[in-house]
């Protein structure tokens, strides 16, 4: 399915961490598997941690700090949302599509106002609740087809064979590209965001693959416009001017990279929880109307995404002196576990009624695809429970997690 070589996809090597407050490592294998105790300790002792590893960054851990920093615009820029940068990267292009071939170009996630404002408005209508509901029948059929392929075997890998198969096909459907490309998408996105996060050469290779693919799709749509997002963006205008091909390719890059790894991580984490908590599975099977509420709790408890900001001018936050150019990890997953913000924050309570979680971020960079992600999660979990109402982990120790800036299970063997 993937031609990421075993050498490329090897876990990053990390030196053991002895002091998380001053030397944390987002790729530490224990942290990837179970980051929650680290955040709990930091919240009590040093709520904004710092590290020099992987290019250096700050890590806030309280709800209050994470939310406040997410709203610090323009003091904190989104020009470079990934922590580790390939050494051959030029300066970021701030999402205007004019940067060098290798820079992060994924407007609007990589943009600041004013580019952010118009480039976000351009795509939001495709992700409104009504717009995303149109993709629900396709998603539901897809989930049934995936279950059909395994229902007689009594086992399924809830990550590799289910969760990971869904978002690439939904995004291909939305972009109007060949559904057969879905496996390539999976490989490219892992190349950029999972493996590539700690391996700049791999990331650059897959960024180029994505850029070239979408530049090809754009050239094709110019000749053969269709009823799809790429064709719509080609005919859109901002202040009377068409949008550059590079900007459109960048936005498609965003939809691919941000819409795939993230959502499959969320679906997988929810299935992992349910496989290990049969009482919650039973409640949802008995009363599927609880699913939307439970889904918000899965999003809170297992929020996968941590994006980065860049400090623009020297500032002090909660006594921490941050210098221009410093990276800050927007630790939304940690904020969601803050006991100051959530009662029984460490417990997964699937009927939690008051749940102001920030899994999709807050402020102007709120995940543009959040409605699509919610729909995919609710359908994926709902169909799984409908078809496989009783299931468990084959072996809890066989479950593997990917970490870094998107955390979720990658191997999740389930028996039923």
């Amino acid at each position, binding site marked *: 399915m993937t031609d990421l070589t075993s050498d490329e996809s090897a876990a990053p090597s990390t030196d053991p961490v002895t002091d998380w407050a001053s030397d944390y490592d987002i790729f530490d294998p224990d942290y990837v598997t179970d980051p929650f105790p680290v955040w709990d300790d930091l919240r009590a002792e040093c709520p904004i941690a710092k590290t020099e590893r992987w290019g250096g960054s700050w890590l806030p851990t309280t709800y209050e700090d994470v939310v406040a920093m997410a709203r610090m615009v323009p003091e904190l820029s989104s020009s470079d949302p990934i922590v580790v940068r390939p050494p051959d990267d030029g300066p970021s292009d701030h999402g205007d599509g004019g940067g060098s071939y290798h820079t992060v170009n994924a407007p609007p996630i990589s943009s600041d106002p004013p580019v952010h404002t118009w480039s976000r408005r351009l795509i939001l209508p495709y992700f409104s609740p009504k717009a995303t509901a149109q993709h629900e029948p396709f998603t539901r059929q897809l989930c049934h087809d995936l279950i059909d392929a395994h229902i007689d075997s009594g086992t399924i890998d809830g990550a590799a064979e289910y969760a990971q198969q869904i978002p690439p096909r939904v995004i291909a459907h939305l972009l109007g590209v060949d559904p057969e490309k879905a496996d390539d998408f999976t490989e490219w996105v892992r190349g950029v965001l999972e493996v590539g996060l700690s391996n700049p050469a791999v990331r650059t290779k897959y960024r180029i693959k994505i850029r070239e693919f979408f530049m090809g799709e754009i050239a094709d749509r110019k000749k053969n416009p269709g009823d799809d997002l790429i064709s719509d963006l080609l005919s859109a205008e901002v202040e009377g001017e068409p949008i550059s091909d590079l900007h459109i390719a960048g936005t498609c890059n965003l939809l691919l990279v941000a819409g795939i790894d993230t959502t499959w991580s969320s679906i997988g984490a929810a299935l992992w929880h349910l496989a290990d908590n049969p009482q919650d599975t039973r409640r949802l099977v008995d009363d599927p109307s609880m699913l939307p509420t439970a889904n918000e709790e899965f999003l809170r408890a297992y929020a996968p995404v941590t994006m980065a900001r860049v400090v623009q001018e020297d500032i002090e936050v909660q006594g921490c002196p941050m210098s221009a150019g410093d990276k800050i990890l927007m630790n939304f997953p940690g904020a969601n576990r803050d006991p100051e913000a959530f009662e029984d924050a460490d417990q997964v309570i699937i009927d939690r009624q008051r749940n*102001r979680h920030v899994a999709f971020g807050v402020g102007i960079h*709120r995940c543009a695809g959040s409605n699509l992600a919610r729909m995919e999660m609710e359908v994926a979990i709902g169909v799984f429970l409908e078809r496989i109402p009783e299931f468990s982990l084959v072996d809890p120790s066989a479950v593997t997690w990917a970490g870094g800036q998107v955390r979720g299970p990658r191997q999740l063997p389930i028996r039923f």
Partner: protein
Amino acid sequence: MKIVIDSDKCEGHNRCYSIAPELIEVDDFGYATAAGDGNVPAELEEKARLAVDNCPEFAVTIVED
């Protein structure tokens, strides 16, 4: 009871709309406004309170009569 959306704070999470679609309208971009005059019928008051308590932007408030 009246439900009020602060459009300067709303970032289009749609949490309020998913909880209380009877009380909220969203535009094509996903931004929310109170449906109609914002008045909350007695049977929907709990939903209105949940819409307040689930907004990540603190954009939803209720005004008691």
